[in-house]
């Protein structure tokens, strides 16, 4: 089915489960332990975003933009032409020293982050739709109090919805406590929980997909592997 009103992940298996796709303004949370493949999924999402000719803002909190660029190249997307065209912008929230106008220091308040994100979105007025990936949002929350986080979270997601931006926020399990995840979860339209299944000796990667609000589709568990050139490959669909 051909649909230009909604967006997809660019990962077969997951895209099948979201039916007609994500409406612009949807919010996605990707949750999982370090190394489970969240940034790989995000790379494929960026590749899909570029192929659909949307804009993408990629907020690098856990790795530098340079490392993220090489990830993208590995999965078959050279970011340079898109950066030159102003369709792909990296926000550096990783480096210790300022690296340019799109730099955010972890010492600054979340309000400052909001203002930077807003400014970058406003500057991307080129007629294309926009998606934003924060890798990972949980890092941005480190050392901040719960109330500040929740206020920021609600305001930001409302704003992104109003602007019809698809937002993908990555969250690392170990960084935030479980109560924070539970509080945050209801703010998202789609949650993907990535984890290791199987045994300790033979761990298998799996993900669990659920849509929290509309209930248009059921939660499903998918097993996947990570190919060094392709990215996430859904190997078995155990949809209930």
């Amino acid at each position: 089915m051909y649909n230009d009103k909604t967006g997809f992940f660019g990962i077969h298996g997951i895209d099948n489960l979201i039916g007609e796709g994500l409406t612009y303004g949807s919010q996605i949370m990707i949750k999982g332990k370090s190394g489970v493949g969240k940034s790989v999924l995000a790379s494929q999402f960026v590749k899909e975003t570029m192929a659909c000719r949307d804009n993408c803002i990629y907020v690098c909190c856990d790795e530098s933009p340079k490392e993220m660029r090489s990830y993208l190249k590995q999965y078959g997307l050279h970011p340079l032409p898109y950066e030159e065209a102003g369709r792909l912008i990296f926000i550096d929230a990783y480096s210790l020293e300022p690296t340019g106008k799109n730099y955010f220091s972890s010492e600054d308040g979340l309000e400052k982050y909001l203002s930077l994100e807003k400014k970058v979105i406003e500057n991307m007025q080129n007629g294309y739709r926009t998606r934003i990936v924060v890798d990972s949002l949980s890092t941005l929350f480190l050392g901040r109090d719960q109330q500040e986080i929740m206020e920021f979270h609600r305001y930001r997601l409302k704003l992104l919805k109003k602007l019809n931006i698809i937002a993908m926020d990555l969250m690392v399990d170990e960084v935030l406590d479980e109560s924070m995840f539970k509080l945050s979860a209801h703010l998202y339209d789609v949650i993907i929980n990535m984890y290791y299944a199987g045994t300790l000796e033979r761990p298998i990667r799996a993900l669990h997909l659920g849509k929290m609000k509309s209930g248009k589709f059921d939660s499903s568990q998918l097993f996947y592997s990570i190919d060094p050139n392709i990215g996430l490959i859904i190997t078995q669909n155990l949809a209930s």
Partner: protein
Amino acid sequence: MSKEEFLFKYLNSVLLGVSQLSDTVPMGGKNYLEITCDNSFEKMFDQYKNSFNPASNEAIDLCRAWIAMMEDERFCDKNDYEFNNEGDFVKITVNKANCFYNEYCIEAREKNLPVVCPRMLSCRWIATKFSGRQYQLTTEEFSDTNRCMGAIYPEETISEILSVEGDNITFAGERAIVLSTHAYGILIKTIYNYAPHLLERVLFESTYYSSLAQYERIKNNFKNNHDTLEHLLRTIERLGNIRYEIVEYDELNMRAVIRGYNSYMAAIFKDNDLLNTPKTSCASGRGRLAAYFSGAWGEEIVCEEVKCEAFGDDYCEFILLPKRL
């Protein structure tokens, strides 16, 4: 009109007809025309070879003997030809005033059809036949002067016409098959149904490696990278895959922008319901261009498709740049 004049007029019409045909058959073009002419030179030579007496098997002597043989049969005047050795090249100058191919030559150029100079081409043919080396012909831009200039030089011939050999069709010496876009679409759809995550990779890599081999086969036949790439892109166009246009070419900084029109791949993606949303789809086009430019520029070049007919754009647009950047 004398009988001779009528025959020359007819000869020009036949050549023009072959040019028109060669422009429409897959993998036709100039190569097709050259092979047609070579076959006729062979026929002529067989009939008059008793008067062919070259001083040596050097290309220049073979050319002179060939023209002398034709003069014996009153088919031309050897004073209309001038041959000079310049290294491996034999420079040829032909007096245009007495050329009875003028009518064909002018009309074919006006109609933008493939055109060859049968007089100079016959020199290439005779040199190739007896020197033990393959020769190519290069001709200078047609001008209003009374002379045509060209040169033959030793180089492998590029055989790339689609021809029938026994039960098989061959292309560039290899057995070929002709697949309708409908049949190819079903093949692609089947891969998509069973392994959708592999489709892009399969299309990209299969075209990348076959295109790299194609580049390797012909890379020594052209004087510079741009000409080699132009030739390769025209070949793909003549196969009916996609018509390419080089919009930007900066070899020094390794950057190029190529546009593609009427992409068969974009059509296949649209026609076979392979897209859940409009997106750039020409993975095989990216693979082909990445291979050609990697070969030509001597380092790994990547290709990004930033516009696509499958998206509803007027053309597909590809940006080539080094992976290391």
